Structure formats: C-alpha cells, structure tokens
C-alpha cells in the first residue's frame, strides 16, 4: 500500500514528540512527567513505523513504553509526591547548559546547510515485507559477535544488580 500524507504525519508526530519532551521537563509532578515521556516514546515508535522499520517500532513499544516506563512509574508511585512537588525543578548549571545547547544548535545548522553533501541523495531501497527477517539475518549473521558481547554485558549487569541488592544469596 502506497504511503499517504507522509509529510503531514511526520510533522504531527514530531510535534507530539516535542510537546511531550517539553512536558517531561516542565511538569512539577513526576508522574505527569513519566506519562509525557510515554507519549514521546510512542510517537517515536510511530516515526520508526514511517521509516519502514516495524520491528524496531514493536520493540520500542514493548521495551520502553510497556517495560521500562512501568518500572519508572512503579518507583515514582512509592515516592512522596508532596515533598517532590516542593523541591526546585531546575538546578543552576546554566553555563554547561548554554554550551551544550550551542553545540547541538551548531550541529543542527551544519547538517541543515551542508546536509545534501553529507547524506546520500537517494532514498535506500526499503524492505517492508520481510524487514524483521532482514534484521535477524544481519543481527545473527554479520554482527553476531557484537550482539553476543552486548548480551553478555547485560547479563553481567543483571547478576551485579542481584549481588548488590541481596545480602545473602
């Protein structure tokens, strides 16, 4: 099926992401911030879908929106909301913030002005029908070693967390 109104959906989803992102840092209530972050993550998953990456979109929803954010909310709910509402929201590291914002802004301007020479001028051929199978072939064929290293790293982190949390195993 041919894509419909692609620019419209791209700008809509980007706007939702930006509004969600701003809400994450401006809301005083941490639960509202977490919910805004979920909105941002879901809009991001939709943008992956628009880029013909359904597998990445599905994993984004399962892992981030359904898994990690539930644990976030789980922890936030146990924190006293009344006390955190009174705390100051922003710390005064505006010098570092300025430098980071300038660097990022400079990067954006550079990409915007010189973009045509950096990026390829034609779109890649998209594999929509068997995208997941292609991802699997690359992940378990070409990048097998890197993938296994990453999973080993995660395993070490899990075991480390158990060892640190439990006094007696």
């Amino acid at each position, binding site marked *: *099926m*041919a894509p419909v109104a692609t620019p419209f959906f791209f700008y809509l989803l980007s706007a939702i992401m930006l509004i969600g992102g701003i809400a994450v840092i401006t809301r005083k*209530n941490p*639960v*509202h911030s977490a*919910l805004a972050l*979920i909105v941002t993550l879901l809009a991001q998953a939709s943008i992956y879908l628009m880029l013909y990456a*359904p*597998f990445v*979109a*599905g*994993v984004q*929803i*399962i892992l981030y*929106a*359904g*898994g990690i*954010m*539930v*644990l976030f*909310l*789980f922890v936030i*709910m*146990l924190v006293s909301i009344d006390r955190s509402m009174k705390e100051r929201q922003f710390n005064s590291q505006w010098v570092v913030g300025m430098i980071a914002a300038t660097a990022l802004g400079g990067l954006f301007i550079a990409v915007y002005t010189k973009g045509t020479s950096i990026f390829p001028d034609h779109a890649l051929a998209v594999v*929509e*029908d*068997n*995208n*997941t*199978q292609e991802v*699997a072939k690359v992940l378990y064929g070409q990048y097998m070693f890197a993938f296994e290293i990453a999973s080993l790293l995660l395993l070490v982190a899990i075991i480390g967390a158990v060892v640190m949390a439990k006094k007696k195993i």
Partner: protein
Amino acid sequence: MGAIIQYISSYLSSDKTPGAAGNMFWALVYIMLVFGGLSVAVIAMNWLERKILAHMQVRLGPMRVGPHGLLQPIADAIKLLLKEDIMPAEADGFVFWMAPLIVVLAAFTVFVVVPFGPTHAITDMNIGILFMLGVSSLSVLGIVMAGWASNSHYPLIGALRSSAQMVSYEVAMGLAVVSAILMTSLNAEGTGTLSMIGIVKAQLAQHEWFIFKFFPLGLVAFFIFAVAMVAETNRAPFDLAEAESELTAGFHTEYSGFRWSLFFLAEYSAMIAVSSIAVTLWLGGWLRPFPNMLSGTPWDQIFSLFPGVTFLFFAAICFYNTVRMPKHPLFRIQTIGLAGFGVVLGLIGLVLFVPAVSVRVQDIFWFSAKVAGFMYLYIWYRGTFPRYRFDQLMQMGWKVLLPMGLGVLILTASVALLQQKIWHP
C-alpha cells in the same frame, strides 16, 4: 457512484485482508464487525461467568431478569450507565480520567491483527505477534495510573501488585511465544514469521499444530503461556491485584459507573485477546480439528456442518427450557421471549447450512470455538483454584515458569536444528 461500487467490489476478488489490500471501506466494515462481535462476546461472557460459577457452586445464579437471567447483562449495563460517577476529592483528575481510556484502547487495539480466518482479519502485520504483545502490555500503564490517581491506599497497593505481576509474567510469556515462533521457521527458506496469519499458515504447511510439534516441547511451551496469560489478565487464581478480601476491589476501588464498566470491558476483551494469541500460536488458529486423521472431501463436508449444528443445538436447549418454564400466567412473556430467542438461533443455524455461507464462516467458527474453550477454562479456574499468596505468585513466575521457558526455548532450537541438519538434510 459506479466508481464507489467498483471500489467496494474490487476487494471481493482479492484474497488478502482489507488492511493488506488497502481497501478503506472493507477495513471499516471489518472494524465494525470485530467491535460488535467483541462487545456481544463480553456481554455473553458476563452472563455465562455468573451462571457457570453459580452452577459450579450448586446455586442457580441470575434467574430474575428474563428467562434464566438472560437479560441480566442488559440490566447491569443500564444500572452502570445510570449510576452516579464519583471522583475522589483528592484524586488527580486528568490521570484518573485517562486511566480507563488507556486500558480500553489497549485491549481493543490488539484485535486489529487477530486472524479469524486467512482473509478474515482487519489487517495482517509483518510484526503481528509483537504488536499484540506490545499493545497489550500498555494496559498495565492504565492500571498503574488508575491505582495512583485514586489517591487511596487500596488502589495503590492493587496497582503495585498488578504491575509487579504483569512485568514478571511477561518474561515467561515472551519465552514461550519465541519457542512457537521458532517452529514457524522450519520450511524450505528457513525463515520464520511474526505475522499472525503467517504463523497459522506455517502450521497448515507443516500439517501439525504447534502444540503437538516436537512432543512434549510444544505442549510445555503452551502450558507456560496458558499459566502466564491468566496472570497477565489479572484473573483468578492470580487476581491479587483485585483480591476482594484484602484490597476491596484493588486498582478500581474508587471507580464507579461508566468508568468502572470500561475496566470491566477491558478485562474481558483482554482475556479474549490473549486466548486468541494462544489459539493462533499453538492450536492452529482457524484450522479445523483432525486435519490429518480425518482428511478428504467427505470429512471436509461433515466438518462444514458444525457451525449450523452448533446453533441448532443452542436452539434446541432454548426450546427444551421453554417447555420447562412454569405454566403460571406471570411467566407468559418470558416463555414467549425464550421461544423467540430459540427461533432466532435456529434460523441462524439453518442459514449456516447454506454451502456458500458455511464455506466463508467456517474459519471464524473454528477460531471462535477454540477461544470459547479458553473462556470456559478461565471461569473453571476461578471456580476451582484458591488464590495464590503474592510471594508464591512471584516464586512461580521467576523460579518455575522462567527456567522452564528458557529450557523449552533451548531444546526447541536444538531439536529443530537437528531435524534440519541430520534427519532431513
């Protein structure tokens, strides 16, 4: 006008789902049908659960509203809609309002990819099963939000229990699903599929439902999923999130009226959704039973009579009970109503005998019949198993189901590899 008719009829000759064919009209029709069917199924489940539980406990169950309480769900619905809608004074208004909405949205959206037949699905996605698991895992967010926004102790504890439980059982559930998806890759190309229709087609091509594949590996994976799905939907014996004796009603204690009915709707449609995942992955989806043992045209024709026979059987039950109704004048309207219901069911049954209809409806019938079996199991569990303690629940999830799931996954992969490399090189 002609162009519109041509657009509508152009889909009929394609053998794809309306979503895959890109036909908006039929996609809308299918969405309406699935929505309507689901709502009717939830209403029927409401009545059946109360009735079957009652009979398991040697009671009669609802008997007052309509013959044998058949109109009880409608009375309940009217009561819920007319009830005063209360929001606790200290509640977080927006989150309180959003929570039931998210739960219902997540529960209904998953039905976009449920395959009722080779062409009877709203759409077929490349990532079908991932989509179902992902979207249904969003419903836990709604539960957590409901528990927190109520600003009350019982709902908060209920929500904490529910989220801990659902996150733990998702792991075992995912491992069981992966071992079934591994089985779809046993074909000439050696690549599997995540599409719901593709999974059933793989079972058709291998002439074997995945529950019987590599016996007992498929059966064990199915068992893990069958336990985890009860925990995922917060149903007895894993209903600690809404344990009446400890938490009043758990996360929806502060909800009333229409908002509460949304939670109710979501709970039952989530039950149907996870049951349809189990049916699709292990029980051959829309395929009829005994495809190998009883194959051939005569058996196909006999099995195509099943939908009609089922409805005629329901009609016969209605007529039997019409005769047994009390002969008092006060019961006259109820008796006529029950007889009328029987006539309607019988007519539906007769229509289903028409070959042109039965060919198209068979897939949907077998899928729904298998899902209905799971729905009965849910009620049966509730009637027989005592509720688990929370530490027992966690122990079961992490120390029993998770190692079992890992073991089954490794063994399935090894056996599949052996089969491909050694037995059939």
